[in-house]
Structure formats: structure tokens, C-alpha cells
């Protein structure tokens, strides 16, 4: 028999995910509901000697859904979601210090007549707000279990599990299985008159459950006076973003050196321990040079995700949306788009998926189309390598490094490109009235190290899996294409012909070269661009493999890709290469997720076309300006 299913339901920002994390621990599975890209988070929870499946449903305020997220929550609750059995228990999570809104939703759900448990989460925050609550009052009034929990401190979890066990036993013993609510039933629940009644009752219940209320502490409000300040708020947001990008450079140094040293040692070891031949070349030039050159960037990617997770879990992200709303309005978007776009700095895929919370379809489509312009972490390897090789690590004053400044400039270029694209899109293909901005801003919270660690681990795992699959495969295929056919060494006619020129890959790149030559790209870059369609990082791996193979003939094999590039490329070419990567849509996964999100090929093809055109123009402009300034 299948495990019973318990679903966590509730408003956004009531700590559902934190509760889900402590209840399931590492036993989680994150995927998608079939047909929609709303994230499905499921895990196993141990109840005494039995197990149950725990679902973490997207946050919602009502069964009357306004976004894709809310729609999935409603359909799962009603047992209508394809590929998801109807939950046996609906565990409604409330923010103990702001119960009214949660109780309105809970009363709608109660009308469905399903086994139900109330969870008063974050009860410690309620205490700090000076509220003394009585869960017994809610138990008496609603006739269902009500448990106080503090997910962050693992408080109340045993009581919650006991309540789940009891509720399951009760529902199994009662013979009269409740019929699923039909459309008429649902309409009755979300009708104006019913909602009016729920509202009054929720107000009564929320007030009734408060035993005593002392003076509330207004620290969230006070913090908001600073962080939402008309001028200060913007400066603080800019400072946070600047700090984030400087940190990516400064903090990642030592761990990156370490990883580099490990691969260098491994390469040296294999080089010395094995006889020359196919296997050795494969290991040293293909695997170690290729994959190693990408893995080195794990620390930077984790630092970036660390900041994003931190901003999300403290509640600052919605403030950033508030501060940015008016500016986003200038290009026809709203603050809602800011959160998906900021996530896209880590990776466009979660960013594009996060657009599902935008309820206006045209706003959402525009956000999806410009998300790939946000500088994602996969570009970091490319940027870092080129900047490291061509930009001197000097200080431009005030502790700000030139390299970090250039990196910041690349991010700004992406942002400006995105804004320009949004402006044009909103006046052409996604024309329509402005959708407005309406969003709850949760209280500030101390970030929970456990949730951030779980989040970081998941990102690290995704990156390592990418390095192990997509990047590894692309690198190995490229290595094969670069290694064969071999230059006939004994034939004097081929003396001086390099292996890369003679190989299949070199010949393919040779045909593409004329197309990219006008924008300052050489044969090596043409070579790197093809496999980089799979993922941007592969460009680095491809260059590393190509130069490692050509380096075979040299006495001293340099492991530093940057040093080799600096000798081979002009500064104008390097800058054009950077400009290309600011705009080029080189990531198969992003195209795939766009296709899934927009239900067809029309928009992903549109996206590919306009981004490639933009990349070509930007690289050309950069190259020719640089040449004009004498940097060619």
C-alpha cells in the first residue's frame, strides 16, 4: 500500500519550508508536477513505526487562485492535480503572530471536510512580539488539532507527529469517505458571502486565541524605515549587490587555489606515472584539464548562492522588490520581476521557474525572455578566466580591485541589456497594460543556517552533476574531435601543422571562423563556442582541452589556461569574447525550461534569435571600439 500523504499548506512566508526541512531531514525529493513547472517538494516523514509522504505545497492565500502556484496548491488539495494522489491530511501552517490571514485560508480548507491539522508555526516570534496564544481555544472552536511549533528550533515536532498519527488513524477508521468537492462546491466556498463569513470568523478566532498581548516590538518596522528609505534604500541595495560581487572574487580565492592545486597535482601525477598513449592523453587533456577547469569555480558559485539564499531567508528579498518596483516600472515591469531576475544571477533556470509567482502573463513572459541576460554563475568561469588573464590585479583605490570592478561592469552590462530588451518587448511582442505590484512583505527573520546549508548543498550537487554529465560529455567529445585524426608526424609535408588545426574540430572551427572573424574572434574561440552551446562553462573546458592538446609538444606544460590565453589573444579579442558572453543564450537547459514554461517552441526560438543577434552586435561593437583605442 502507498504511504499516506500529508500536505503542508499555508500562506507564503509562514515557515512551511523550514518545517518541511526539519520534518524530512535529508529524505527529500524535489521535482516538478507533470505539465507545469511548479516545483514539487516531497519527502518522507517517520511517524512512530510507519512512514508518510510529506508534501510542501506552494504558498497561497486562498482557494480562489490568482497564480500558477496557487492553482497547483488548490488542485493538489482537491485531488485534481495530475500525477498526485489526494493528500490524506491537510496540515495548514499559520504564522502564529499573524494568524488572521492564515485562518481565512484555513476556514476555506475546513469547508472541504478533509482531515486537517492546524500548525501555529514561528510561535517564538509571536512571543517576542508580546503575544501569548492559546492553541486550546482554536482546538475547542474548530474541533481539530492545533499544534504550536518553532521549526527553526525543532520545537513541537513530536507533538505534531503524534497529531498526524492520530488523525490518520481516525480517518482510516471512519467508514464514510468524503467525496471530493466539485466545481459548484468550490464556487460556494469562494463566493463573496462565504468569504465574508470566513473573514469575520477568522478575525474572531485570531482575537480569541490571544490570551494576553503586551507592547509589541516594532523592530521590523524600524528596520524598514532604513531599508525602504526613499534614498537610503536604493543605496543599501546597491551596496549589498556590490558586496556580493566583490565577495565572489575575494572570498573564493583560497579554495579555488586549493582545487587548482589538487588538479595540477593529479595531472602531474598521471603525467609521470603513465606511459604516453591514448589513456594518458584522455585523462590528462580530456578529463583533468577539461572538468578540472570548470570545477574550480564551485566556490564562486556557492558564494553567490549563499548571498541569494541569505537575502531570501531574511525577508530582505521582498524589500528589494519594493525598492526596485518603480525603476522596473520604467521598462514596463514591476517589483515582482525583480526576485526571479535576482535569482537568475545564480542561474536562469530557477529564475525562470520563479516567474510562476507573477500573476500577469505578459509580465511573466517578458521576465522569462530577459532572465538569461542576468549574469548567471555559469558565466563566472568564463569571466573570471578572461579577467584573470587580461586585467591586472591592481587596486583602483578604496580597497576596490580593478578585476572586481570589471566583473561588476559586466553584470551591469547584462542588467542594462535586460532593461533595454524589456522596454522594447513591452512595446512590441508583450504589449499590454501594466500589471501592478501587490506583495506581502514578511517580517525580518534571522537566517536559519540549516536551511541555507541544505540550499547550498542542493546547488552544489546540481553543479557537480552538471560537471559530471553535460560538461564531462561535451569535454570528452571535444577531446576526441581534437585528437583525431592525428597529424602524420613522419610526413614532412605536415611539419609545423598543429594537431588542433589538423583535427576534425579544428576543421569545423575553421569553417565557422569567417562568420565570427568580423567580431574579433579567432579559430580557438570558434572552436570553444560550439560545445559551449551545451553549457557556457564548457567554453573554458574547451579552451583548456584545446591548449592542453597543443601543449603536448612543449617541454613545459602549463596548467594555467589564463597564462596561455594572455600570450595568444589580443585585449580587444578578449573584451569582445566577454561582451559575447554577456548576451549569448548558450545553455541548453535554459532553452528547455523556457520551452516548458511557455508551452511551445515559439518563445524559446524567439529568445535564441534575439539574444544571438544582440551578442553578435555587442561583441562587434566592443572589438572595433577596442581596436580604435589601440588595444587590438
Amino acid at each position: 500500500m502507498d504511504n499516506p500523504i500529508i500536505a503542508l499548506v499555508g500562506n507564503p512566508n509562514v515557515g512551511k519550508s523550514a518545517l518541511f526541512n526539519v520534518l524530512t531531514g535529508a529524505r527529500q525529493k524535489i521535482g516538478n508536477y507533470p505539465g507545469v513547472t511548479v516545483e514539487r517538494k516531497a519527502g518522507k516523514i517517520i511517524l512512530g513505526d510507519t512512514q508518510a509522504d510529506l508534501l510542501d505545497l506552494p504558498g497561497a492565500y486562498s482557494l480562489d487562485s490568482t497564480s500558477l502556484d496557487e492553482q497547483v496548491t488548490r488542485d493538489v488539495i482537491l485531488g485534481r492535480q495530475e500525477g498526485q494522489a489526494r493528500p490524506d491530511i491537510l496540515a495548514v501552517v499559520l504564522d502564529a503572530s499573524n494568524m488572521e490571514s492564515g485562518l481565512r485560508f484555513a476556514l476555506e480548507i475546513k469547508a472541504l471536510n478533509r482531515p486537517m491539522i492546524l500548525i501555529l508555526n514561528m510561535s517564538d516570534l509571536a512571543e517576542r512580539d508580546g503575544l501569548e496564544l492559546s492553541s486550546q481555544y482554536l482546538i475547542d472552536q474548530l474541533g481539530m488539532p492545533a499544534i504550536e511549533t518553532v521549526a527553526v528550533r525543532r520545537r513541537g515536532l513530536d507533538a505534531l507527529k503524534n497529531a498526524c498519527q492520530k488523525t490518520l488513524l481516525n480517518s482510516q477508521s471512519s467508514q464514510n469517505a468524503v467525496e471530493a468537492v466539485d466545481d459548484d462546491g468550490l464556487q460556494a466556498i469562494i463566493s463573496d458571502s462565504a468569504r465574508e463569513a470566513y473573514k469575520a470568523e477568522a478575525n474572531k478566532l485570531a482575537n480569541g486565541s490571544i490570551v494576553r498581548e503586551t507592547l509589541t516590538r516594532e523592530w521590523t518596522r524600524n528596520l524598514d524605515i532604513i531599508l525602504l528609505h526613499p534614498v537610503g534604500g536604493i543605496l543599501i541595495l546597491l551596496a549589498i549587490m556590490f558586496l556580493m560581487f566583490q565577495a565572489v572574487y575575494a572570498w573564493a580565492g583560497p579554495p579555488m587555489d586549493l582545487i587548482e592545486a589538487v588538479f595540477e597535482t593529479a595531472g602531474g601525477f598521471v603525467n609521470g606515472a603513465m606511459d604516453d598513449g591514448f589513456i594518458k592523453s584522455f585523462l590528462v587533456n580530456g578529463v583533468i584539464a577539461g572538468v578540472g577547469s570548470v570545477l574550480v569555480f564551485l566556490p564562486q558559485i556557492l558564494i553567490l548562492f549563499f548571498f541569494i539564499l541569505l537575502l531570501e531567508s531574511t525577508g530582505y528579498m521582498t524589500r528589494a522588490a519594493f525598492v526596485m518596483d518603480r525603476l522596473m516600472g520604467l521598462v514596463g515591469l514591476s517589483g515582482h520581476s525583480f526576485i526571479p531576475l535576482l535569482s537568475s544571477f545564480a542561474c536562469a533556470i530557477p529564475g525562470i521557474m520563479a516567474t510562476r509567482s507573477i500573476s500577469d502573463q505578459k509580465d511573466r513572459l517578458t521576465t522569462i525572455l530577459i532572465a538569461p541576460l542576468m549574469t548567471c554563475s555559469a558565466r563566472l568561469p568564463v569571466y573570471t578566466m578572461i579577467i584573470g588573464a587580461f586585467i591586472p590585479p591592481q587596486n583602483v583605490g578604496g580597497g576596490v580591485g580593478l578585476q572586481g570592478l570589471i566583473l561588476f561592469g559586466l553584470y551591469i552590462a547584462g542588467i542594462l541589456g535586460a532593461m533595454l530588451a524589456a522596454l522594447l518587448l513591452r512595446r512590441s511582442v508583450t504589449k499590454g497594460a501594466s500589471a501592478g505590484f501587490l506583495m506581502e512583505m514578511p517580517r525580518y527573520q534571522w537566517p536559519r543556517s540549516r536551511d541555507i546549508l541544505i540550499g547550498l548543498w542542493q546547488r552544489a550537487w546540481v553543479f557537480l552533476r552538471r560537471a559530471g554529465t553535460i560538461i564531462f560529455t561535451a569535454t570528452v567529445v571535444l577531446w576526441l574531435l581534437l585528437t583525431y585524426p592525428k597529424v602524420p608526424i613522419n610526413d614532412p609535408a605536415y611539419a609545423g601543422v598543429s594537431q588542433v588545426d589538423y583535427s576534425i574540430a579544428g576543421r569545423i572551427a575553421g569553417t565557422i571562423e569567417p562568420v565570427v572573424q568580423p567580431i574579433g574572434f579567432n579559430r580557438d574561440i570558434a572552436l570553444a563556442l560550439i560545445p559551449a552551446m551545451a553549457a557556457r562553462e564548457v567554453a573554458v573546458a574547451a579552451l583548456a582541452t584545446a591548449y592542453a592538446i597543443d601543449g603536448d609538444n612543449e617541454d613545459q606544460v602549463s596548467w594555467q589556461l589564463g597564462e596561455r590565453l594572455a600570450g595568444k589573444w589580443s585585449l580587444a579579442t578578449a573584451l569582445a569574447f566577454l561582451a559575447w558572453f554577456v548576451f549569448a543564450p548558450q545553455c541548453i537547459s535554459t532553452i528547455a525550461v523556457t520551452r516548458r514554461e511557455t508551452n511551445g517552441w515559439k518563445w524559446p526560438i524567439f529568445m535564441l534569435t534575439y539574444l544571438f543577434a544582440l551578442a553578435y552586435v555587442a561583441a562587434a561593437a566592443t572589438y572595433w571600439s577596442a581596436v580604435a583605442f589601440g588595444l587590438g
Partner: protein
Amino acid sequence: MHLDTLPLRQKMRISSIDWTQISDNEGRRLRALGIESGAIIEALHRGILFWRDPLAVRVGRMSIAMRSKTAAAIAIEAMLENDEDNVSHG
């Protein structure tokens, strides 16, 4: 008087909302957040630079960000005598 011109830190009562000025979708979201006739509302912060838009309001214990354009459709009046009891623990 409408919500968009309400001075900060002053609790008022929503007297009516002109739903014709608000899209269906946004209207539903407003109701889901508890912004309806009779609700007690307070302006907390106004947005950035010279636009002073969007604004953050408090309803119950929630802080909600909305644009001035939406706020302009929300008419407000002085609180009634027994309103203080209905202000959800605020």
C-alpha cells in the same frame, strides 16, 4: 480621501474600493490579503526617490506593498468608535 494620499502612521478605515479601476486579478489578490471595505489600514512607508511609489501599508499584522495607482482606488475614512476592537491585535 484615498489611500495614496494618507499620511504615514495614521490608522484609517477603508470605506469603499473602486473595483472598476483595478484588474480582476489584482482585485482578488487584494481581497485575499484582507484589503476590503471595513478593514483598518495604515500607510507605513513610501517608495523611492521623487516617485514615492510604491507604498507599504499595514492591514492587521501584515505589511503589504502596493502601487499608488491601486491605492488611489481605495477610499478611506476615519475609524468608527468600535473599530479599535476589530483592529486585529494591531
